[in-house]
């Protein structure tokens, strides 16, 4: 994929206490970014810097206040109807609470296939069977989310995004809400999918993992990409002193 973001602006109402708002805060401040022809882009940076806001716009969940986004030269739609069609061609996984708690893991997987992509129930079951077995989740398919571990829940969520055969996946800190031992199984699954050529845009705090899977890295801080480019350059000799400081605190040698 090739991603070009130009002068992206996003503002949110600023809370003024008592449920009222006072003006707005600018979360993305004329953010620009251009990647080469890559498979995986990783967004990193300090909390509140705008990574997740950027990802939500890239995933078609929020509309920016201003600016342009284009994947492979194709601009994102500017209306909700168009964005919904766009969302059906990509997959998104959030930090937590992705699955619908009233449905079993299997029903969670079937829902988009049947109700959004028009498959028959039997056709949908046939399609999810192989991926479920591949990621050793078939034995848990009959369980409700509450009966699954955090790692299993996230892996089912990734599968749900995957079985609709999306062009690329957007992952917003998919392991941040997990215990360390469950992080590994989710990260392993992502690495495996990446190795077979899946495209990802990923927000993470796992710097070692970012280094392993990213083709390019964008450092998002204060609503801008202050440093971006190839993974080797980013971790090798970052020009931006803020990136050096960030890496010093997050990369345990």
């Amino acid at each position: 994929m090739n991603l070009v973001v130009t002068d992206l602006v996003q503002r949110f109402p600023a809370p003024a206490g008592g449920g009222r708002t006072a003006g707005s805060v600018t979360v993305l401040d004329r953010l620009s970014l251009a990647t080469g022809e890559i498979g995986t882009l990783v967004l990193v940076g300090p909390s509140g810097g705008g990574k997740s806001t950027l990802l939500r716009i890239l995933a078609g969940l929020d509309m920016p206040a201003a600016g342009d986004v284009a994947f492979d030269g194709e601009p994102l739609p500017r209306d909700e109807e168009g964005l919904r069609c766009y969302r059906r061609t990509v997959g998104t996984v959030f930090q937590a609470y992705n699955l619908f708690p009233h449905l079993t893991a299997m029903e969670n997987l079937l829902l988009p296939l049947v109700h959004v992509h028009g498959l028959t129930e039997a056709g949908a079951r046939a399609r999810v069977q192989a991926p479920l077995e591949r990621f050793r989740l078939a034995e848990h398919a009959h369980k409700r989310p509450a009966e699954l571990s955090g790692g299993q829940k996230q892996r089912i969520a990734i599968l749900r995004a995957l079985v609709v055969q999306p062009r690329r996946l957007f992952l917003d800190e998919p392991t941040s809400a997990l215990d360390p031992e469950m992080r590994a199984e989710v990260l392993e699954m992502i690495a495996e999918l990446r190795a077979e050529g899946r495209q990802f845009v990923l927000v993470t705090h796992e710097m070692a993992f970012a280094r392993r899977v990213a083709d390019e890295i964008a450092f998002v801080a204060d609503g801008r990409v202050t440093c971006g480019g190839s993974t080797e350059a980013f971790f090798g000799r970052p020009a931006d002193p803020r990136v050096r400081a960030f890496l010093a605190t997050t990369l345990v040698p």
Partner: protein
Amino acid sequence: MPRWIAHLLVAMVFAAAVAVAFSRVDYDWNWPAVWGYRRKFLQGWLVTVAVSLSALVVSGLVGSVAALMLRSGNSLVEAAARVYVELIRGTPLLVQLLIGFYVVATAVGLENRYVAGVLLLSLFSGAYMAEIFRGGLDAIPRAQIDSGRAIGLTPWQSLRLVVLPQAVRLVLPAVAGQLVSLVKDSSLLSVIAISELTLNAQEVNAFTYSTLESYLPLAAGYLMLTLPLSALARWLEHRFRYEIA
């Protein structure tokens, strides 16, 4: 101890206490006089059943529409729903029935008092339902809506497939309580001369001067409706039960 034995025990203790209370009252029981009017009780009870069931369905519709209006995002629509809910909940049903039937229904040419009664009762109960439904919808986490949008659901699909199934489980106990109230509130329809159970019991009392013999069957008649309703609600609650992730 099995639950049914516990229920039976409590019921027996309660019945004994009531029996003691009644034994201390100097009262001439005259059941035969009231027994002669048993068909009248049955007719009244059937009207109460019909009116309650109709109002139960209509108030569910009214409540659903008002709940959606309350969270429509349009300030005019929200204001209209809010005024409706607060006016209805803040005034006595008695006044609503009298004004609604003798003033409003007459003005719009609605002469069938049964239809008017069901509508007025539904508007009353619908205001409470609206707040229950709104609370249930608001309790569904934002992340669930986002997940629905992320897989490409339309807003209507999201409501039908994601939000409502979860909200139903949350609101069931409160809705059951409201429906039980609705059945009992139907007794006030006697003030607009709807010949339901309460009006018939009052008439039997007037004919026989046997107050307790008229009103005790009245209470039993309502229990015969409200107890199955509560049991149904508990069964549904059990069916919709699942752990939250």
